């Protein structure tokens, strides 16, 4: 790491003001940022420590308002929280599947949602890739077994978060505070495919901070599951993951949200699959159609065609699991 100044943020307004300045970065858990600083991918002149912000460390729950997670809540706290385990199991499952016990004690939910891609070209200083301001995606014709199969354009990296697909499946919203804004948006809206003028995976601008994540209470009878495939049994980012939440009206699927991780630059909502499922009774054929729809338009690269198979296998399994569970 190059040298930097360090400031403990006393409150959100001050943090926003500090972060609006040039060459300044926020640090919370630090598990993503320090990796970038150590690799000297970036060298901000100042770090603003968000961990000192009061009021963003809490998990609260009420039957009316649902679940509220302060942005500084750690993954370990989410994983172990009894109400989350009971009412929002896919969130607890996703948290438990991420990283390691130590990293989950350090990493925050806010940081997890905003983390940078793990693409091995992006993370290597020797490659001036498009996402870092260069003009080429090295993965496109290079080593791309971990890369995107859906929706990729100039950059083929995938969003690495485990929590994001689960929270999108749960229809979570965020409160974002910035120099000129203080508002709510859905988590799904946070993510964006990087574009020529905005080479990042979220819409957050300088000085904009997530302060809270809110999760509505799933309808009665709603069920969810989070599945993740890795190259080893733990401590890996997802090759492909699927978070799904469904509720039922009698034998019919009343609502379904299916979100894939590890397949695209953003958590990939399989809207066509959802449309196919909603209002229908489960059948093998229905599941097949939903599975095919989930990967429709997939454009695998040289080394990642297996991700299409994985995505199909996982989507099929979540549909069967959720439709065959009886309360």
């Amino acid at each position, binding site marked *: *790491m190059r040298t930097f100044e360090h400031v403990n943020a006393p409150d959100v307004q001050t943090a926003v003001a500090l972060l609006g300045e040039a060459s300044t970065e926020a640090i919370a858990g630090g598990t993503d940022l320090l990796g970038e600083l150590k690799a000297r991918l970036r060298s901000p002149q100042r770090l603003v420590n968000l961990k000192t912000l009061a009021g963003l460390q809490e998990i609260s729950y009420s039957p009316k308002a649902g679940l509220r997670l302060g942005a500084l809540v750690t993954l370990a706290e989410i994983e172990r929280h009894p109400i989350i385990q009971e009412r929002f199991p896919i969130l607890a499952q996703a948290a438990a599947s991420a990283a390691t016990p130590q990293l989950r004690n350090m990493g925050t939910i806010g940081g997890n949602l905003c983390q940078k891609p793990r693409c091995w070209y992006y993370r290597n200083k*020797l*490659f001036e890739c498009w996402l870092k301001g260069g003009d080429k995606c090295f993965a496109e014709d*290079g*080593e791309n077994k971990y890369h995107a199969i859906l929706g990729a354009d100039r950059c083929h990296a995938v969003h690495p978060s485990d929590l994001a697909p689960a929270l999108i499946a749960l229809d979570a919203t965020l409160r974002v505070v910035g120099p000129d804004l203080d508002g709510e948006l859905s988590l799904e809206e946070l993510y964006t495919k990087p574009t020529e003028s905005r080479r990042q995976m979220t819409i957050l601008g300088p000085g904009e901070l997530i302060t809270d994540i809110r999760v509505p209470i799933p309808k009665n009878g709603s069920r969810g599951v989070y599945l993740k495939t890795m*190259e*080893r049994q733990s401590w890996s980012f997802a090759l492909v993951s699927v978070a799904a939440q469904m509720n039922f009206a009698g034998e019919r699927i009343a609502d379904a949200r299916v979100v894939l991780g590890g397949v695209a630059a953003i958590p990939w909502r399989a809207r066509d699959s959802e449309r196919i499922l909603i209002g229908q009774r489960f059948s093998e054929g229905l599941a097949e159609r939903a599975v095919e729809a989930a990967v429709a338009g997939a454009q695998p690269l040289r080394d990642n065609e297996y991700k299409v*198979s*994985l995505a199909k296998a*996982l989507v099929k399994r979540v549909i069967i699991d959720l439709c065959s569970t009886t309360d």
Partner: protein
Amino acid sequence: MPKVIKTKTEFEGHVFEEYVVVEGEGLSAWEPQAPLKFVGQKTPRIDGPERVTGRALYTFDVQLPGMLYGKILRSPHPHAKIKKLDTRRAAKLPGVRAVLSYKNTPKISFRQGQTFVFDEIVRYVGDEVACVIADDEEIAEDALELIEVEYELLPFVLDPEEALQPHAPKVQLSGNLLNGKPDLYERGDLDQGFAQAGVIVEGAFKTQCALHNCMETHGSVALWEGDSLTIWDSTQHIFGVRAAAAQLLGLPLNKVRVIKKYMGGGFGSKNGLGKYTVIAALGAKMTGRPVKIMLDRHEENLAAGNRPATVQHLKIGAKHDGTLTALELRASVGAGAFCTWPPSVGGPARQLYLCPNVKTEQHTVFTNTGPLSAFRAPGYVEGTFALESLMDELARKLDIDPIELRLKNYTEIDQMTGRPYSTKGLREAYERGTKLFGWDLTPRSPSLKGRGGSPPTLGEGLGERFRRGFGMASQIWSGNGSPPAYALVKLNPDGTATVISGTQDIGTGTKTVLAQVAAEELDFPIEKISVEIGDTQLGPYAPLSAGSMTVASVGPAVRVAAHDARQQLLDIAAQVLEVPRESLTICDGLLSSSAIKEPVAVKDVLEKLENFMIIGRGAREPNPEDVTVNTFGVQFAEVAVDTETGEVKVERIVAVHDSGRVINPLTLSSQIEGGIIQGLGYALCEQRVVDKATGVVINGNLENYKLPTALDIPEIVFEMVDQPDPRANNLGVKGVGEPPIIPTAAAIANAVADAIGVRISELPITRDKVLKALKKE
């Protein structure tokens, strides 16, 4: 008087002839059933307390007053000539004490003339360009960014097969083929062998480049005191580093001291002198202060060695009853940019089975990638994967049980030399392993065709999408140990003993095993024994800790030295106690004689001699010339394959190995389990990835170079044949460090083939390959 003997030694598949000096009394091995007090007992590590408290001082932990840190600038290009190097800005940064490069250091030839410590040609991404010495590592890293280098890019080649093409860029001036010709071995008549065959199977097998990833990276601390150089080095061979450093730096041997007290893993990658050691010594000389250079994890994975990738074309001919008639292997091995020594990929094909007609041909090829180094059973892990995979295919084709096929081609003769094996416990290993695993009860079908749809045997919790499979593979490896290896045993006036040898404990438990041997021979309580190793200034020579040879090389020398000390003690005690020497015995550190009433403590005798110290000397005896000493074993694997996601879950490994007499069943079991777990990683997830367009290693870290975690570990069950090998050496021991990694990947691959009915002939067996294979099916 020392005797000089000419002897042959075998090391990792290569045979050398050398002179050795033997001193001390020749001792024969203990009888197999001899009642032994310490040898054969589960003995916790005598240095366990240091290791569990954090007090053990590794090279990484050495901090000297005034110590500076070095960081190396490495080439970003796979092949280039340095046109311009400007270190002035870096040198001016506050806290920077020196910047070393080819401009201000002597031109020191390295790796037998293939490069220089600072070369003006860089031959792989990661090759050393310059080194900053600074007050702290961060400052040195800041300075690295200020060094300006202009490179003239040269054409490069990454793939070994491409490197053999006539117009391929030359990595080394002498050409890309190591030694200018392939390693060739032939016996019998191959054509005739294939002509006699009723069945021929063949296949191309690929193994990946694997990285050691020792937890402690490579590195050194160098300190000059006058014209004497002390090096703390994370090395498997202190005497080798001393000799090489002295030679390169132009120093006499008595001015170089190499120390390695504790080491965080080596696995073969720390067998030799590293450039970082020479650079640290040069930097320390230049600055007048001690200098520490420890590689970081990324450098470790670029420049500190690897198990090279291989491509193996293997062909086996057999009669219908399974008798092998011909075996042919053509292998290419990617050496990386430098290589002085080829791993023996053809070893298993030449040795494991009885076969009169064999040809192996190995091309070891320079490429513009990081240089290879030994990695736990180099060559044999790779070669066994191919051989045992194809033997499995042969069994299937002939509809013979895989174990039966191997027994059909069992040999008691080392076919390379025509000599019999001293002992060979492989038949017993097959028998015991078969029972332990329940091999005969597993629902394997010799013909896998049509098994895909038949109901697989499913354990609890497994659904329809899983298929279970069973496989096995055998192991052969030298592990014989050899001279030269020397030891001293000092008896201190208080009745304690110190074992001294210039060997090193790389994590295997060497100290504990040597203490057991000394305690046994002296008949002292083991608590009275301490072991001093890892310092060239203290101990007599011992070989590198590699080739599964430490216990079988140094252990016998310690026994001879302890025996010598014991004889001297008896001589002295007889005179002090005024009893006939023949009447004296030692038991639990007490001297007894029919001529005295009460036993006398050794201490009570030695204390009468002021500070006289008994020093016993011992040397490793030569190996027998009429037999071959090898290690053998077999492993069985049970896997469950998820046919939807391609996941291979290894559920159980059963191993039975023959490594002669077991000295310490506790530390031995760690070697077996650890070897299997490394083999598991090699089989399923480990693989260096190099970007083909740029030659950059893009997963040189522990995030994307996947090692097994706690949750990846299968049930491991093992037994040792535990038959002392009386011809091997005076302990009856053979090595055990490498054997357990050798057959694991092959056994897993065979189990996967059994499960899914398709052979995956390329490691590692990852989901993409399994899913692809299933599609083919």
